[in-house]
C-alpha cells in the first residue's frame, strides 16, 4: 500500500483511492514527424528500476489528475505536483538528486 498526497485537495490518499496513469511528461509528436519518432512517442515507455515520473488521478476523491515522482523499488514518493506543468519543479528535482545520487535526470 502506498500513500500519495494529492496536490489539489491535500488529502494523503491511499493507493486504492487513486488511479495510475502511466508515464508523465510525454510530448506528443506531430503529424510531420517520421515513423521512428512516432513509434517512440506511441509505444516506447521508460521502465526504470528507480525514480519514475508518473501520472495519477485522484479518482475516488477530488477527481483531478496530478503528477508524482516515485521510486519504483523503494516505493518512496518524492513529491506530487499539478498536471499543468511541462517539467518537474526544480526543487523536486534537487530533492531527488540529493536522495538518489545515481539518478540520471528526468528526461
Amino acid at each position, binding site marked *: 500500500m502506498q500513500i500519495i498526497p494529492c496536490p*489539489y*485537495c491535500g*488529502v494523503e490518499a491511499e493507493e486504492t*483511492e487513486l488511479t495510475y496513469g502511466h508515464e508523465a511528461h510525454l510530448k506528443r509528436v506531430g503529424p510531420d514527424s517520421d515513423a521512428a519518432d512516432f513509434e517512440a512517442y506511441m509505444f516506447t515507455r521508460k521502465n526504470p528500476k528507480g525514480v519514475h515520473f508518473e501520472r495519477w488521478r485522484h*479518482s*475516488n476523491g*477530488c477527481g*483531478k489528475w496530478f503528477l508524482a515522482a516515485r521510486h519504483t523499488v523503494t516505493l518512496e514518493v518524492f513529491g506530487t505536483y499539478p498536471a499543468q506543468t511541462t517539467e518537474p519543479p526544480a526543487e523536486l528535482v534537487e530533492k531527488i538528486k540529493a536522495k538518489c545520487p545515481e539518478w540520471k535526470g528526468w528526461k
Partner: protein
Amino acid sequence: MSEAVSALKGESHTGFATVAEAGLTGMVTIRADLGSKTLADALGPMGLSVPGLRGVVAADGRSLAWMSPDELMLFCGYDEAPKIAADLTAAFGGEHSLVVNVSDMRSLFVVSGAKGDEVLMKLCPVDMATLPQMEMRRTRAAQTGVAFWRSGPGEIRLICFRSVAGYMMGLLEVSSRRGGEIF
C-alpha cells in the same frame, strides 16, 4: 406531478451505531471559479461563503461543501433546490460555470452514535482519528465513491450516488452490526 421519494425511503438500522438514509435532501452542485466575486455575491444572501480547502460551512439549515478546486456542493431543502439552482445559474450569467440540481442523483446517509467512526473505518481508507469536524472527505467505501463529513457531535453525513444507495445501505448495515466494534 409524481410524488418524489428518496432511494430507500428513510430506511434505518441500529447496531453499535445508527445508520439511516436521510430521505429527500436538496443537493446542488456548483462548478465554477471558486474565487469568483459573482459566486461570493450569490451565496452571500444565504449566509454562506465559499469554504476553504475541504471545508464545509453551514447556515440556516443549509451547508456548502468544498468538493474539488472548482466544485462546491450545496445541501438544502429538497423543495428549494430547483429554485436555488435556477437563481445561481441566473446570477452567473455568462460567466463560465455549471450549476445543477442533483438532488435526485445522490443519496444522503447519516451515521450517528459514539462509535459511528468505526462503521466507516471498516469501509474507507481514511484516518478517522485525524478527520476534523466540518471537513469534507471524498473517498471510497468498499467499491463505491462517497464523500462524508462530521456534521455534528457523534454524527457523520455521507453522500453517494443514488444508483448505489442499496449497496451503500448494505455496507453500512453490516458494518454497524453489534459485535463488530473495532475498539
